């Protein structure tokens, strides 16, 4: 049981956290033909946009209501209206997803009310899909923005089935947390389809931000789940939620459509994947395919090979709650000690993290604690690069953003295969660090007692 503490500093130094609205916008990016829109000043959008572009190395749709000082004070109805009209006319989206920001929340803009008025005033927008989520910057974090947005999508876009008895036993809803990459989603899709099931991912970033070349240049998202498919998610037999953050959306789905859900808090590691595959086998009525029996063996072997290197490692990890829980648990199960854990926001999983303390703090905290307790493995997003340089310990990049390495969208951590590759990656980092920085020298084991080092060297050379 970890003790969860909240940092007391007035000044956050080297933030680990990112803001809630861009977490919400990120969720909208997993919808086909979608245009996420931040209701705030243009900087709110441009910072977020730059972050996504640098992470994915892709064009990313994200618009702004471009609130000026005057508009902010007077209220943003006209800006929201104009933004929606402009986007609707210019980019022809299938859906517009709107997130509020700190400025507009401080003013207290009633965007739901705005949307009603806009629909009344513009008949062609009366039934146009628009989803609004309240996501003030001065509360919560990136993951919370995602959580609220997906829940809201379910509430607004999923239709209540007319006859609850007629479910399609092959259909499965998948509600992935924001800690999963497009690569993870594709891996899950393959696994689920191998059981003869048909998954609908909400949101589906693998369709939009996996780097594929689109059939046509569109200013909106180039793929993802369509609004039409979301509407029918109530006909699925099951909902699989991944990460504790998705409980809210899964419950919303159950409340609206009666579709039962199973929450998997983790999908990295041997035992979590055993549970996952057993569940898929149960709901599909099919045995676990041979392919996964082999992959399980490969993971087991990887764990055997890597435990020499990971065992006893003192891990310092900074990540949003669900990623933190997933990765730190897996490494704990590999024999590493979760010595320092820093996160961004509250979550029910925090107290179950296998560390003494989980701190809601920043990367300065992570760096100082890691240094004080002699950690020798650092895991966090790319902003940890400066800390890693000063700490001089192996650094594995995980989470968002990852702007200084390639392939962020394809980094895997789910499934037997994803876990296997992740274990290899981290173990190899440690091996390389050992080779580069910790090779034994004649003085490695010298205690300082007895003759001085130079004397012995001189003596042995002659």
């Amino acid at each position: 049981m970890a003790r969860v503490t909240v940092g007391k500093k007035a000044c956050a130094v080297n933030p680990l956290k990112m803001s809630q609205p861009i977490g919400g916008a990120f969720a909208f990016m997993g919808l086909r033909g979608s245009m996420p829109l931040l209701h705030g000043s243009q900087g709110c959008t441009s910072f977020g946009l730059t972050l996504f572009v640098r992470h994915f190395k892709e064009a990313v749709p994200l618009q702004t209501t471009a609130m000026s000082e005057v508009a902010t004070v007077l209220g943003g109805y006209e800006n929201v209206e104009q933004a929606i009209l402009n986007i609707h006319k210019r980019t022809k989206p299938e859906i517009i997803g709107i997130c509020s920001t700190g400025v507009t929340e401080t003013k207290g803009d009633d965007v739901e009310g705005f949307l009603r008025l806009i629909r009344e005033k513009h008949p062609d927008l009366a039934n146009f899909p628009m989803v609004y989520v309240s996501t003030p910057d001065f509360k919560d974090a990136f993951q919370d923005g995602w959580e609220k947005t997906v829940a809201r999508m379910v509430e607004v876009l999923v239709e209540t089935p007319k006859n609850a008895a007629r479910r399609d036993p092959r259909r499965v809803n998948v509600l992935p947390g924001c800690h999963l990459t497009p690569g993870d989603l594709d891996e899950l899709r393959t696994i689920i389809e191998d059981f003869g099931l048909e998954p609908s991912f909400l949101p589906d970033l693998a369709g939009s931000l996996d780097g594929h070349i689109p059939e046509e240049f569109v200013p909106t998202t180039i793929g993802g789940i369509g609004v039409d498919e979301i509407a029918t998610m109530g006909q699925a037999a099951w909902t699989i939620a991944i990460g504790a953050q998705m409980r809210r959306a899964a419950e919303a789905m159950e409340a609206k459509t009666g579709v039962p859900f199973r929450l998997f808090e983790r999908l990295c590691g041997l035992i979590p994947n055993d549970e996952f595959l057993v569940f898929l086998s149960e709901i599909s009525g099919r045995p676990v395919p041979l392919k996964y029996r082999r992959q399980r063996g490969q993971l087991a072997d990887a764990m055997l090979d890597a435990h020499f290197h990971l065992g006893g490692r003192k891990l310092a990890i900074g990540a949003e709650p669900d990623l933190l829980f997933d990765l730190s648990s897996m490494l704990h199960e590999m024999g590493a000690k979760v010595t320092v854990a820093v996160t961004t926001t509250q979550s029910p999983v925090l107290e179950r993290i296998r560390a003494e303390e989980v701190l809601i703090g920043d990367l300065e905290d992570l760096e100082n604690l890691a240094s004080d307790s002699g950690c020798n493995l650092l895991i966090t997003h790319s902003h940890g690069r400066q800390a890693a340089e000063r700490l001089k310990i192996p650094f594995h990049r995980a989470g968002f953003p990852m702007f200084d390495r390639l392939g962020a969208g394809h980094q895997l951590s789910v499934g037997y295969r994803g876990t296997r590759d992740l274990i290899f990656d981290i173990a190899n980092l440690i091996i390389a660090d050992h080779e580069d920085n910790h090779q034994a020298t004649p003085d490695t084991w010298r205690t300082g007692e007895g003759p001085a080092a130079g004397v012995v060297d001189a003596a042995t050379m002659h």
Partner: protein
Amino acid sequence: MSSLSAKIQDVFNEPGCGKNANKSEAERKKGCTKQLQPGGAAGGCAFDGAKIALQPLTDVAHLVHGPIACEGNSWDNRGARSSGSNIWRTGFTTDINETDIVFGGEKRLYKAIKEIIEKYDPPAVFVYQTCVPAMIGDDINAVCKAASQKFGKPVIPVNSPGFVGPKNLGNKLAGEALLDHVIGTEEPDYTTPYDLNIIGEYNLSGELWQVKPLLDELGIRIFSCISGDGKYREVAYSHRAKAAMMVCSKAMINVARKMEERYGIPFFEGSFYGIQDSSDSLREIARLLIERGAPDELMARTEAVIVREEAKAWAAIEPYKPRFAGKKVLLITGGVKSWSVVAALQEAGLELVGTSVKKSTKEDKERIKELMGQDAHMIDDMTPREMYKMLKDAKADIMLSGGKSQFVALKAAMPWLDINQERSHAYMGYVGMAKLMEEIDKALFNPVWEQLRQPAPWDDAAKNWQATAMAQMDAEAAQLAADPQAAEAARRARKVCNCKTVDLGTIEDAIRTNALTTVEQVRQHTEASGGCGFCAVRLEDILAALPAVAGSSPAPLLEAAE
């Protein structure tokens, strides 16, 4: 906020700004407070601009007072380089929460400044105001003043909350903060007749160091660089420099001009992009320094260095010339780099097929025209599809642009090179030119293009996305060609003024009906150019071309693409 709005007015009245000079008195007052188009805007806010301009000051703690978005989403994302301290890359923010919004964030800000000084002890703390604390009325000037007195250290308020305007305004407000609180507050240990300020240079990718060796060789001291690889104290005593060079177009013209006004430091606007520009700038530096008392022999030594470096640079470029012969470049960039890079590329024998003048001022545009001759195609706002068509029509072999537009080129399997601030290579000075050519060469002749242009064996090449996009555009063009009425409608529907959404037809009609002859008149009748003022140049072109409009043939393809 009243002092801030007065400051913004002051910045808008900048006489050194060419864009500003194009505006009427009333519009100048409105300045950049013009409404950006909701749902169609891009680019950073005033806070972003202020941070960009000041963050390269390396030994200063940059503290952002606001919710997590402003710093948490953006810190350590700039490619500037430091030769010393790295504290500028540390992200400091008050990360204000709901309680702060209700009770005010001033106490938290004060405590944050205290924590930074206790833990990091920088020579100064810069405090950036953002939208939310500005709305709730946090007085950062007062907090900075109190903290400065209490801790005996400069604490500089940078009053540039995002919602007051675009990035460009933020650049200037940052300059004002330096003028008000930093410049002239300290004295140098010694001065020499060779002391030069460089203003508006951010040392991205360490590019300043491509030029510094030459200045060192000439004995010219970079007295203070605002702000690339800058140090607080150097800026504080920069008022003792003999001369200044203003590098980044208009971003910090207020600093250069006011330092001339207040401290008599003459400045010139120059660039180190390209061989000719580098030589011109070196000459101008020497001239100004000599004017201010440096010995005349500096010019002879400067000329000698120029001759030597030009020869070396040409020799380095020579091998590329045959390889680049007939190669065409599509240049999409904003502001000053448009013309300075154009010159650089032409020096290597590359042909330019278009350049964007989105952020360029009238002077910039004139310079591009001058450099590229009468055939210059000014492409203001191409859509991705049009960009692709342009590349595909083999009008371009490579695209040079900023980071965000790269994906169109890359997905079209066309070579692309980053020349904006996120770039990882430095292209300044004589050595930078050779580096640029090397990078263009690597991009142009990489074997990946050949493979990537091959369709998948199972794909019908006639039906892939490229062919589809082309077919669509060709069909649209054919349709227009077959239907002169539609073509005319399309031509007239072309938007000239983005801010006020005024199309070409409206403007032409207004000109004809009212016999208008000046941009000012057009503005009065149609509101065109009444926003940011960028399109005033386009209006001039329309005014000049109008007598011919009635009987003219359809506009050339490229113009239609605009």
